């Protein structure tokens, strides 16, 4: 099997951190804050490594766009079993404004360059929740897409993917090459082992800039304001069910 799979992994603020809005209200505080790999990307890496263990895939390449610290994220992927990494260097200030469209163009170019037949990414990043990269990448490459995957099975020259959708589960077939986005229940990512963390040090991480791939990272939109959600207010007590229904109708809930 000569299938190469490209996996995108993003360095985001750790899910357990209490987020604070920056004083300039243009973003959140990231300085000195704990970061880790986007949880959905961990699931994507895990799936790619499992495909390799089943001999469905030959090589797993982990890609991350970001400042130097993105290499930590790639090393985590390598420790989980990815074979090599690609670090697309984007300075921190630019990273704040990097959009799914830019990332998709980068991933598309890399998929072509590496002749990968499968691109797996997490369904969304937990910082911007855009849920757009997988879809845009597929669009740019003109490949089929299987998003919100909760199960992937290879059959001959296509993938059978079970997707989690609003109404339940949908099973689709996508021909390779394809783009897949990983949903929560696709798998449970493994812990890297200490020996694998040590081995990951020796695995190669190639460095490049978006310009090297012919991708322009000029932002297309501007964040005007970032604010906290409104503080939770006290509720009211009602005497009986009729009043409850009345109140709910008043606020347009029913």
């Amino acid at each position: 099997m000569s299938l190469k799979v490209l996996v995108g992994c993003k360095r985001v603020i750790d899910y357990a951190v209490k987020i604070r809005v920056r004083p300039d209200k243009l973003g959140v505080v990231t300085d000195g804050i704990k970061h880790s790999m986007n949880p959905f990307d961990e699931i994507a890496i895990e799936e790619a490594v499992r495909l390799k263990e089943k001999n469905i895939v030959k090589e797993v390449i982990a890609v991350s766009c970001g400042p130097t610290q993105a290499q930590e994220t790639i090393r985590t992927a390598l420790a989980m079993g990815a074979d090599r990494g690609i670090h697309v260097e984007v300075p921190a200030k630019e990273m704040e404004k990097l959009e799914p469209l830019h990332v998709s163009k980068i991933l598309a170019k890399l998929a072509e360059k590496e002749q990968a037949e499968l691109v797996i990414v997490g369904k969304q990043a937990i910082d911007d929740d855009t849920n757009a990269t997988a879809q845009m990448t597929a669009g740019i490459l003109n490949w089929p897409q299987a998003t919100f995957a909760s199960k992937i099975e290879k059959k001959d020259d296509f993938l059978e993917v079970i997707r989690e959708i609003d109404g339940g589960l949908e099973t689709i077939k996508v021909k390779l090459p394809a783009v897949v986005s990983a949903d929560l229940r696709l798998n449970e990512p493994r812990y890297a082992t200490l020996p694998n963390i040590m081995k990951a040090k020796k695995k190669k991480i190639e460095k490049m800039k978006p310009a090297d791939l012919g991708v322009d990272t000029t932002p297309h939109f501007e964040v005007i304001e970032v604010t906290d959600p409104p503080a939770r207010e006290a509720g009211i007590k009602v005497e009986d069910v009729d009043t409850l229904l009345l109140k709910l109708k008043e606020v347009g809930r029913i």
Partner: protein
Amino acid sequence: TTKRRQTDLKMLPGLCLGRTVRHLRVLGRAWKRWQPRLEGDSSACATLPFTMPKRYLVTSFDPSHGLTDEQIAIQKLAINFARNEMLPNMAIWDEKELFPVDTMRAAAALGFGAVYASEEFGGTGLSRLDASIIFEALSQGCTSTTAYISIHNMCAWMIDKFGNKSQREQWIPQLASMEKFASYCLTEPGAGSDAGSLSTTAKKVGEELILNGSKAFISGGGDTDVYLVMCRTGSEGPKGISCVLVEKGTPGLNFGTKEKKIGWNSQPTRMVIFEDCRVPVINIIGDEGQGFNIAMKGLNGGRINIASCSLGAAQASIEAAADHVKVRKQFGKPLSSFQNSQFRLAEMSTELVASRLLVRNAATALQDDHPDAVTLCSMAKYYATEKCFNIINEALQLHGGYGYLKDYSVQQYLRDSRVHMILEGTNEVMRILIARHILAD
């Protein structure tokens, strides 16, 4: 000083306590050439490239500062494991006195079973500092269980370092994977701090040793499979002691009732009793008469490990206390606005960072075979275990009445860390060792 020049740049802060290092802030600033200022020894530090990752070369309140990228990855693994696999269970393990064999084996599968034993027979081959970081992180999940894991690690190292090829071949793989669990048997009812006076005898008869005597306070005793027993094969004093490996199930090996303790409840503690227990002579680890030496060398590392466990418990407790005082309101204000709470937390954090510096310094000293290693390990052990216990005690006070309830974890960290001031050499014995060094001619 020669050794310092060769030491990895990133390890420097562990040794250079009085040195200041300016670090580069990546976000929001123009790139600047980063030049470390070191008094005196500038040959060890070259100018680092300006794309240096934002790694702080100082030890701070955040335990990940001052570590290499690899150590940060190792620490992240340990933190995640502690957070997911241990923290949700620490209260139950304490209440029901469960020895969490499956969880420990899961940890061993990741390489936590024989962290600093060599890779030759299945150890993970990491450094003492790596081990300290690991135990500090795991301890936040469950201090008692982590302490046992560290004891198991100590035993694995002793066999790896002093055992012969066939002993290492036989035992290291089983201990590294925690297929078998180990216990360290030195203390006796009549020989605690005066360990050299131990009286468990091992009389040589043909190709066997016949052991008679008893060991007290043995962690894991009765549930573990392999016992490293320091016993008397020769004459009085430390030089007559050998280290003998005894397997559970050997006739004549018995155990006392499980002790009822105020903490460390996720590990059973029992007396280990030898009644004409016959063990093959080939089970001696190292040379005859080397046992005390092996035991003490094991304890140097054990002391760093136990101190690291205290660090983790203290870290978790300070964070819990800080969270609590931000939320708890009295007299119309959160407790965090009262100067008393602020000052207490300030003092607690200062002692935590000081303890951490001492512990990591000792770990590096031991790894590098520094001439003062034993003294530094003793300093780190007594200082960190004492200060951290006080930190946790203060943290409990900051919780008010809630701190006394088992719903809150600070009381468990307190109960679990109290014994660290006593075992692996009492803090009083640590002072003896340090004074000996200072007063030596």
